[in-house]
């Protein structure tokens, strides 16, 4: 017995002793360490950003956003709206192959969007495409979308829906074993661990530089960072620990790229309840949000103070709006005008377990006390919190954020139109409704579009259904041996050109 144990120990010692394998990633493979695992890989069914980060390497949409947030050709080479805005025509790229070797044609485009629009299918994002009426194929590489309602921003939504092959789309396992036209083919996926992709050498955009790409899901930010610093992953993405950023930026062996993002966080006011029905009270609370302190100390300088519902990355952004910046004296005056200064004003603030939001809630509690408002903070688990905000009216103030605000319609219609599906503040303004409806029918590149949304922002900011806290910023961290990657303002598109990345 003892001898057997001895032999086993010897074997183990030998095995370990011989181990000279070093865990650094192989030179053939680009390893991406990301904070969250994908839910699935079927563009028709997913709604989360981590899924689309991976989908956008395997599959491609007709058009996409480049790092300047301009729409650029992908599977479509050209597109055009008819003069009445009711037909959108796409000229498709010829010579594109699916990963199984079949050619990509207009049939696939028609199939994808008709599937999404089919009320018997479970596409959660159907509403984004609801204005599409009929899809007409003129030939294999020319397709017309006939619209039921004019929608100038439809292209932005189409940019978020990669095309699915008609000859594979009905497969039961498509969600975990997809086929696309993108630069890398799906190989295998062990969920919550590793997803392996292999170069598609017949890619229309040229042969990818590196043969393999690997996505590793590492939920714990400190582990991800250590793995990155140890060289086990080449690029770090998602869920930055803000306190670590200054150290990383000082390290010459690490490249930190930052760019303003497409989201923001905000305080939402329930405009139906008691004192918050008064615009002066809402403006007063907006004036006690110490935005600079929040960006500096909670976010460690990541992001910028919030001003309006449109992120500064978009051309429609305007800071020519009513000033509701941090000013305690002004807040007191507003409360006095509202006739509630010195009264015992108590409000309930809700947030989820996000640690940054909890700290923001604490800062707000402190600042609000300085003008005599008692804020009671309740922290809820995300699912329960979401149900409260979406299904009930049982809240005074809440902290939430929006991501992927790619156009002004997306950034304002759902949130502030009287009938908007995400109007959790119950705000209603006839002039604003008119502007938001008109904006949908205008050419997005026109001066009139800019003017309309500037006025809309002015109405929203002055009436303060939201108190804007901060704009997000995207951070991408990689080693100097990685070349050809640029941080993307819309993180779902970060890896869409990973076939051009070189690892030295």
């Amino acid at each position, binding site marked *: 017995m003892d001898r057997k144990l001895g032999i086993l120990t010897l074997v183990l010692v030998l095995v370990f002793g011989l181990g000279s394998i070093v865990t650094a990633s192989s030179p053939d493979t680009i390893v991406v360490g990301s904070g969250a695992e994908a839910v699935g890989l079927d563009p028709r069914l997913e709604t989360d950003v981590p899924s689309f980060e991976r989908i956008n390497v395997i599959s491609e949409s007709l058009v996409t956003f480049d790092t300047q947030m301009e729409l650029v050709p992908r599977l479509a080479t050209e597109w055009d709206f008819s003069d009445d805005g009711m037909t959108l025509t796409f000229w498709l790229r010829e010579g594109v192959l699916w990963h199984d070797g079949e050619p990509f044609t207009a049939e696939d485009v028609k199939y994808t969007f008709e599937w999404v629009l089919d009320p018997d299918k*479970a596409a959660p994002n159907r509403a*984004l495409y609801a204005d599409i009426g009929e899809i007409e194929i003129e030939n294999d590489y020319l397709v017309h979308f006939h619209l039921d309602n004019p929608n100038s921003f439809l292209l932005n939504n189409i940019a978020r829906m990669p095309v699915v092959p008609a000859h594979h789309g009905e497969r039961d396992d498509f969600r975990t074993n997809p086929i696309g036209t993108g630069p890398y083919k799906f190989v295998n996926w062990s969920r919550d661990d590793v997803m392996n992709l292999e170069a598609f050498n017949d890619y229309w955009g040229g042969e990818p530089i590196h043969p393999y790409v690997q996505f590793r899901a590492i939920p714990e930010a400190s582990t*991800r960072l250590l793995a990155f610093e140890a060289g086990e992953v080449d690029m770090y993405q998602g869920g930055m620990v803000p306190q670590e950023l200054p150290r990383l930026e000082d390290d010459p062996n690490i490249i930190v790229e930052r760019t303003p993002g497409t989201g923001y966080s905000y305080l939402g006011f329930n405009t139906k309840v008691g004192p918050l029905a008064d615009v002066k009270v809402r403006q007063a609370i907006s004036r006690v949000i110490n935005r600079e302190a929040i960006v500096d100390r909670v976010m460690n300088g990541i992001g910028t103070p919030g001003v309006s519902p449109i992120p500064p990355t978009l051309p429609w952004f305007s800071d020519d709006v009513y000033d509701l910046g941090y000013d305690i004296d002004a807040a007191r005056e507003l409360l006095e005008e509202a006739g509630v200064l010195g009264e015992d004003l108590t409000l309930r603030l809700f947030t989820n377990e996000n640690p940054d939001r909890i700290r923001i809630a604490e800062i707000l509690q402190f600042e609000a006390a300085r003008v005599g408002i008692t804020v009671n903070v309740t922290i809820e688990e995300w699912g329960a919190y979401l149900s409260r905000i979406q299904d009930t009216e049982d809240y005074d103030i809440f902290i939430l954020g929006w991501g992927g605000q790619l156009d002004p319609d997306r950034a304002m219609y759902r949130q502030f139109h009287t009938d908007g599906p995400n109007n959790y503040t119950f705000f209603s303004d006839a002039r604003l409704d008119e502007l938001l409806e008109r904006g949908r029918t205008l050419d997005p590149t026109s001066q009139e579009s800019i003017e309309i949304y500037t006025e809309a922002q002015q109405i929203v900011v002055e009436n303060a259904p939201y108190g804007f806290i901060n704009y997000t910023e995207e951070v991408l961290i990689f080693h100097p041996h990685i070349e050809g990657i640029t941080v993307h303002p819309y993180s779902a598109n970060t890896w869409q050109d990973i076939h051009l990345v070189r690892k030295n």
Partner: protein
Amino acid sequence: MFKYIIRRLLQLVPVIIGISIVVFMIVHLAPGDPILMMLGEDATPEDYARLQRIYGFDRPIHEQYLRWAGNALQGNLGVSIRQGAPVSTLIYSRLPATIELAFVSVVLAVLLGVPLGVLAAIKRQTPVDFFSMIVALLGVSMPGFWVALMLLTYVALNVGWIPMFGRGGSIFNGFWQLITTFDGSELYDGLRYVMLPAISIGTAMMAIITRLTRSSLLEILGRDYIRTARAKGLTERVVVFKHGLRNALLPVVTVVGIQFGAMLGGAVITETVFAWPGAGRLIVNAIQQRDFPIVQGGVLMMALIFTLVNLTVDLSYAVLNPRIRYD
């Protein structure tokens, strides 16, 4: 013995039915809505109603339960709402990683904890004893996630061949490969990855085992029959190991069994820190996403395994102490 096992297995039936009802009620009555979580930002009320219908959440709750339970009886735990894959496949794909981690942690804890405890007991009130007890106290005092982060920072970062995260080969397959083909590469790969998470989980358990072994052995060594054994001239080694330790191990085995069972579902924090693809993370993620079928199926499977582990522990008493018989 056989009858006893059958009886215990039959007792499982009401337990499992009870658990299934409780879990079903908790997930359905707690706040949070799977469709809302899935729809994301762009949905309209029509989308909501459409998906409720497609997934069957518009039916009365007892009807939903009966339909689910009926399928579960036939071995069909349903399909994940978010991942679209059968729940049984998802759980099955995760269980090996979970069991492997729990197994290695237990082996580590027992291999270190029992000898340390024995040493402390026979060298009572000496520096060896004090040292063992300090190690044990440290072990129970350090939270697992902290041990994990320390191991990452001070061990993995400096030792090139120890990975930071993820899972390598399966150690069970690897072991089989080693004894059949003398190829230790998969076992080595598996051990490399499982080592740090297993130490993080095993530390606290090792400490508990050390303390328990020590106190249990001390108590046994004070018994009359030990005095008799010594009096009839047996060597100290035979007294301690054959007569003492074997009896002292009964409570240790109980604790090891319970801990092993608890690890199957409760290693979530360690699994998260080391990005270990275990079943705990699958279920916790499912709770966060309100993916009801995975939660229901996962908890049911865990409960089943836990009770089976307990049964095995009970049966092992008979091996340790022949006076215990089951009939």
